[in-house]
């Protein structure tokens, strides 16, 4: 039954271009002609150099922003605003610092009209599931970075999303915590199998987690390559999977593709700096 409902939730971007107006009147193209598909229940990682529009892709799918050209469809319907079945995990904590951990997790159900008692019980269950039983009445600032991420995960998953969008969710964590969190994410994902778009610049993380890795070019971002990750599931501990032979092969293969883009993005970010310096010189 559930898988039938879920099967509606294919994410499709076709010919998507996104331009922003810059403060000085120019337009900045973040994405150019992006076409990609995420199958229902598929875990798709998007990698690319910084500033290539990875996060923009997510805001378009989430309905927080609209594409300048092209179409974004979820379950066959064009995205027109925030949809019900979507959850988002942000790079920085989006937890409300004035609410307790329990209240933060219960926020989604409460917004959707679930009776308070039921929402709080549900939130308690989710906290137990992410290993935070006993922290219900703490405030977010009393928790470590990893714990806050768990709360954010629980808060996103309690709504039983069919689409889970994650924007470098573990980017701010130390390497060990990151690996633990990744393993836990896979366990949680496996329970309800939402379609996932996971944006990261960490290639190892992408391979360890995903069914498919999409490489974006240096900005304006467009799809350069798509790699299928054929590592068997369940993958178990993310820390150990990295030592497998197939993992190394895939890593090598994808890095070949990614390297040029990273180099190009780097060259570009250092170039404007010298141009700015030149302008300054002319001015003075």
């Amino acid at each position, binding site marked *: 039954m559930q898988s039938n409902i879920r099967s509606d939730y294919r994410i499709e971007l076709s010919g998507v271009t996104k331009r922003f107006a810059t403060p000085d009147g120019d337009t900045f193209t973040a994405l150019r002609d992006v076409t990609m598909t995420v199958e229902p229940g598929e875990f798709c990682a998007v990698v690319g150099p910084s500033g290539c529009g990875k996060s923009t892709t997510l805001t378009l799918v989430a309905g927080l922003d609209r594409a300048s050209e092209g179409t974004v469809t979820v379950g066959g319907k064009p995205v027109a605003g925030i949809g019900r079945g979507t959850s988002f995990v942000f790079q920085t904590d989006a937890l*409300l610092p*004035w609410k307790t951990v329990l209240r933060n997790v219960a926020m989604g159900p409460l917004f959707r009209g679930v009776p308070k008692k039921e929402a709080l019980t549900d939130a308690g269950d989710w906290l137990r599931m992410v290993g935070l039983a006993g922290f219900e009445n703490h405030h977010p600032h009393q928790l470590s970075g990893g714990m806050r991420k768990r709360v954010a995960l629980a808060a996103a998953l309690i709504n039983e999303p069919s689409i889970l969008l994650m924007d470098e969710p573990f980017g701010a964590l130390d390497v060990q915590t990151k690996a633990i969190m990744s393993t836990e994410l896979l366990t949680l994902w496996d329970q309800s199998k939402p379609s996932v778009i996971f944006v990261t610049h960490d290639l190892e993380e992408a391979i360890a987690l995903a069914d498919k890795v999409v490489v974006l070019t240096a900005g304006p971002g467009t799809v350069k390559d798509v790699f299928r990750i054929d590592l068997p599931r369940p993958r178990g501990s993310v820390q150990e999977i990295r030592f497998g032979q197939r993992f190394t092969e895939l890593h090598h293969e994808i890095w070949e593709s990614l390297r040029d883009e990273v180099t190009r993005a780097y060259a570009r970010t250092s170039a404007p700096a010298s141009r700015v310096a030149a302008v300054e010189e002319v001015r003075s």
Partner: protein
Amino acid sequence: MTRRRLGIVAAQLAVLVIVFGGWQLFTQLKIVDPFFFGQPSGIVSTAWQWVQHGTSFGSIWLQISTTMEEALLGFGIGVAGGVVAGVLLGQFRFLSDVLSPYIKAVNALPRIVLGALFVILLGLGMSSKVVLAAFLVFFVVFFNAYQGVREVDGNLVNNARILGGSRMQVIRNVVIPSAMTWIIASLHVAFGFAVIGAIVGEVLGAQHGLGVLITDSQNNFNADGIFAGMIIIGAIALIAEWLIGLLERRLLAWRPQMSNEAAAV
């Protein structure tokens, strides 16, 4: 109490003694004329007189309660209005674009002068003072609430929207609590303005209140009376400040403890 803390308290007491002792001494020795500058002992005896025998406008408690009532009512109305207007303008870009030049213009006016108008409009009773106080308070709170709403973390808002929050739910759960730090910070200043509004309103024309007492002292060339009125107002303001501090600690209890906060007070 540490040695350092003891030293500070001792020095603070010394400042008090030097200022008031010096004042008393210089006026006693007629180096400074107590007729114009008042005298601590005279101030105390004037105040005592008021407490024991009342003032020419009724008991001192009536004057204090009148002023307090005006200030508190004005404070309440001004804060409510300022928060509502600040949130509305902060949330609805169109509204703020349309109204902001007018608000800036009104803010640039010396609003205290409007007290004279309110006395004509609303008479010598309490309402003219309440309106003046509310008017002064409104702007302080409004600008802070507006700024607070504008500074709300966009991530928090987006997250709440994606979790299913309607506009009202987002305002209630995210925007207002987030702006609360700003709003509460403004309350300290705002209460001062409420008292100023009430007193100035009374000075401009009233039957009761501390402002009337001060004007009366002025008309009688009674410097001690002016100082006594001032000190009573100061004491009230200090109590109010303390109460707002309590409120602040309660409403912002979720904030991480700042280690140097206690030391700073």
